């Protein structure tokens, strides 16, 4: 794609946000900045995503407390983590890192590189989901199913719940990627930011879940 086309576009629509940009910019009538001014309070979209992540956090806090209670019971049999989990973890963390590189490139107007790194992000993310499915299959092959024992129940439920959030993230990713391809994101600005917040959160959440499930 010719970068000039993008530049034109950027000039054409300097105020009208193409999408990923926080809409707050044009929120106030007559260009009044919101009372939140700068920072996260001046950025409703980012604030909204963070608040959403707050409630997702509480969901997993609730699950963690259930886990702690249940683990104290007599029939708890610790589960050995399927080895593939470590590969999956690597893939997800690498995906997060790739996204950061993509953002840098994007902000620096290096579109082709940004596209490549975004593609890497998505691929690694999809790889993680496939790998998690692989972990389920590996356990099933050992005869460990959802209802086999409390630890396996929590393992399936928590990885499933995290996986659902990740699939949601992949859907969002598809939207971001397609905007990038149709060039409705303005380079130089950070249109990937909101998605990045969510994506990094999921990576962090996964590390947390690993710790809860197998280390603590």
């Amino acid at each position, binding site marked *: 794609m010719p970068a000039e086309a993008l530049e034109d576009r950027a000039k054409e629509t300097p105020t009208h946000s193409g999408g990923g940009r926080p809409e707050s910019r044009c929120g106030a009538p007559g260009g009044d900045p*919101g009372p939140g001014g700068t920072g996260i309070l001046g950025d*409703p979209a980012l604030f909204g995503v963070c608040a959403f992540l707050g*409630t997702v956090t509480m969901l997993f806090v609730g699950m963690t407390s259930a886990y702690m209670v249940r683990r104290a019971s007599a029939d708890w049999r610790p589960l050995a983590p399927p080895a593939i989990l470590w590969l999956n973890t690597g893939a997800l963390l690498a995906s997060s890192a790739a996204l950061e590189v993509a953002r840098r490139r994007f902000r620096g107007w290096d579109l082709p590189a940004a596209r490549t790194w975004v593609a890497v992000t998505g691929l690694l993310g999809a790889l993680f989901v496939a790998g998690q499915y692989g972990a389920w299959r590996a356990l099933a092959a050992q005869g460990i199913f959802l209802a086999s024992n409390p630890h396996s129940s929590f393992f399936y439920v928590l990885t499933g719940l995290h996986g659902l959030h990740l699939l949601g993230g992949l859907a969002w990713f598809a939207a971001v990627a397609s905007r990038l391809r149709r060039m409705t994101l303005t380079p130089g600005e950070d249109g990937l930011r909101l998605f990045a917040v969510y994506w990094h959160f999921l990576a962090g959440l996964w590390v947390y879940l690993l710790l809860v499930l197998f280390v603590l």
Partner: protein
Amino acid sequence: MAHAEAHAAEAHAPQAFIWKYVFSKDHKVIGVQYYVTAMLMALIAGLLAMLIRLQVGFPEATWPTLGKLLPRGFSDGIMSPEFYAMLFTMHGTIMVFFVLSTAPVSGFGNVLIPLQVGWRDMAFPFLNALSYWTFLPGCIIILASFFVGAGAAAGGWTSYPPLSALQGAVPGSGTGQTLWIVGMVFFIASFTMGGLNFLTTILNLRTKGMSLTRLPLTMWAMLLVAVLGLLSFPSLVAGCILLLFDRHFGTSFYLPSGLILTNVPLLNPDGTPLHAGGSPLLWQHLFWFLGHPEVYILMLPALGFTSDILSTFCRKPIFGYKSMVGAMVSIGALSFLVWGHHMFVSGMNPYLGMAFAVFTMLIAVPSAVKVFNWLATLWGSRIQYRTPVFWALGVVSLFISGGLSGIWLGQSAVDIPLHDTYFVVAHFHLIMAGAALFGVFGATAYWFPKMFGRMMNETLGKAHFWFTFVAYYCTFFPMHYIGIAGHMRRIYASGRPIGYYEFLEPLQEINVFITRSALVLGASQLLFFVNFFWSAFKGPKASENPWNAAGLEWTTPSPPGHGNWPGEIPEVHRWPYDYSVPDAPKDFVPQTDPAPIGARAGGH
């Protein structure tokens, strides 16, 4: 795009009926949609309450007509015990979540937030519309559960396992319970979308000059409700997910071993127990970690409405604004630390019970602060007796009378005998159901001009208030006595061989009185529905500011058009409670008036 619309104000308002009134993204339309849906749900849940009371009041009677109308619940005109359990379960569930978490919060919150903070719409209008269109299927699923399988859920609005976790436990534990869970998940999803919008709009998007300390107390209530909802509902979601797995996929999160259903032990083919090791108490913790904040989700908006209404009709600034905010914040914070007071009889460690009791007592402090502030606002004022102020006074009254019994129940030693008796039913109907309901009625009368551009009828409104007020106390106050006398709640009433309790016999007269009062209470709501629909279409047109109120919302047209203010959003120069200010030309100073008079003009 959210704010592209905001810019456009009137010019870009959708024209086609379906986009304007059905799939609208306008906060006022969504608010009214929520409100009307919730009130229809209230009608249904109210009818369920009437059926419960008929059974308790007249256990010996047969109801052939009802039997024809509801063939699944009656046989030969006699209500079945299973149906009775479905009635109180669905009554409670619908009232708590689909009526009184919805009408005041999603209904009035959506209508009022942009008007009171000074913005064109909510932060995320599409999400807002999606929220309503998630709520509505939730309502339909919950109602449909009466008609599928063996009937609706019957494990109480708290859905404790094992009743709720074993599909075969009672008829309602089958499809009905599954639909209960699914309906709740829809509800929570919609409430979460709403909460994100509330929080973002109030914190990020306010007009110039609208500092946090100039927000009406209603907005503080909405802000806190959003925080409470976002932090506590996930706990119930977690609980519901685990419950679904126990029900349908054989896990044992809540289910211990040794379960016996209709004399058959629940075993695997190889003779091991089907479930083992789970803890029913786990559900109680997850449920009440939501459940207690939830009661403040119901209450806080009513407390906010009451403050705003009292100030307007007493023509006095609200007394102790900052302490009011502080009280609400501390009530909200403490509400996360007291869930155990619902579990005193669960066999918890007495020291733990004592900790929960102490935190519960602590909530009495900010609650008392609120009451004294209202009384101080009322003190020496010349009240303008219009309909909204009656309801606000009703809230104050119910908050006091219901709060006092809360002090009893908060003590574990007192709660243990009173637990699961009608005393508890009396307590929570006064403080939670009553105060929230009266708050909704007051807010309806007060903000009706902003919802429909018309005034409600005063005579009908006052008649509705007095009937409701008297009948409400007549219905619920005597429940304290029968509760202390040991009348259990959730019990298929005395009388028939199946539910005969000799010691309840002497209480029957009171039960008849309660049922008669409840029927009057139910019937008086007709006054409201008549008034509501008549006024919405035929009531006298309202002026911009019919109550001479000072808040920002009263500077918009009645009803406000798309975008709320025809021109620029006005700048705010003071708090919304400047009434009877010396040296002011009128007895109120609108929030938009820059004159340097009054308690909170200029900086602050």
